């Protein structure tokens, strides 16, 4: 189903304290790249479950991006 980019049922992604939106139908990898993050440096969690980069995001999805790099 075609979805305009500003659809209210867009995908929500959170990273650290920031929130981003993405278009449904996009892969996790594409959404992560669009935010400007390196897919190698984050993990995506949806409904408490880890999901792989190839997963296609659906409208209303809430995805938490977990940074995996620490600098200590």
């Amino acid at each position, binding site marked *: *189903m*075609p979805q305009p980019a500003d659809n209210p049922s867009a995908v929500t992604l959170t990273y650290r304290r920031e929130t981003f939106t993405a278009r*449904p*139908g*996009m*892969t996790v990898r594409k959404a992560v790249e669009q935010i400007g993050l*390196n*897919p*190698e*440096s984050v*993990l995506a*969690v949806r409904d408490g*479950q*880890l*999901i*792989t*980069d*190839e*997963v*296609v995001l659906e409208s209303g999805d809430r995805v938490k991006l*977990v*940074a*995996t*790099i*620490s*600098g*200590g």
Partner: protein
Amino acid sequence: MTAKRYPLMLCRHCDAKAVINMRQHKLALCGPHYVDWVHKQTARFIDEYGMFAPEDRVLVAVSGGKDSLALWDILLALGYPADGLYIGLGIGWGIGHNPDDDTGESEGQGYSDTSYGYIQDFVQARGGDQTLHVVDVAEEFGATIPAAARVTNRGREKPCSLCGLTKRHIMNRVARDGGYDVLATGHNLDDEAAVLLGNTLQWSVDYLARQGPVMPPSHPGLARKVKPLFRFYEREMAAYAIVRGIDYIYEECPFATGATTARYKDMLNNLELSSPGIKLQFYLRFLKAKKVNNLFENAHRTLDLLTCPTCGQPTTNPGECTFCRTWDRVRDRLAPSRT
């Protein structure tokens, strides 16, 4: 426009939905098979690199972060009776985190206490009968790390060198006094590759000569040190913690911001994006060049190590070691002046 449908990535072993895809291994796995894979790989690395034997007593240095808690979890799952060591550094959230705190310490509610909370939760979730050694720096040596650093360093420099010196001392002491055969730390491949990149950019041959997953003690006051997770990507350890439901401290130590290590890790991950596996190759081929081609063999400086009369740990100069001298100075400077 219709969204292109991608086939779901499935686990190599059971056709369930994969939770992780490791491009460098061309391997995608579901949660249970991933956990199983991590356990088997770790057991293999411990054996292959001669880290320790099943009957050895292992002390795990736990910080509350994902890697060290994952390591403890893995060793317990593999049946090693591993004990933990937590070092309370007394680090707060840093300036700006708590508006009521302008010293950057907020003792009692900061980074260190939050880290300790996660470790206590970890132990409790496993029935609470794991041994956790706790050393509180302020209680034992008279000042928190930030407070001590302020009186030893010029200005407001980072406390990291004092922190590292103190942690090393405590780890060696607890391992030795507790009769442990080996001290295990949670360093992952990203940690090791970032250090290798730094050492290579500087051609620090004596560091390069020493860097590796197993460090035999060069003095009776030192513990044998091993890094059982050194072949796992940092991303894989974060995934392991999530899949196993291990809660860990997500925030960084406030003094770690802008650390060179994080920059090197970013650079390596940018390379990894276009060349999956390059990070792992960089590190493994370094180890191979050392072993097979004797690279840096001549850089091994055989320092004459002396023994500190106060603590029994090694020192290169006669008299007290750097640790003892530094903390003596801290206590002198912090002592209320006598009238």
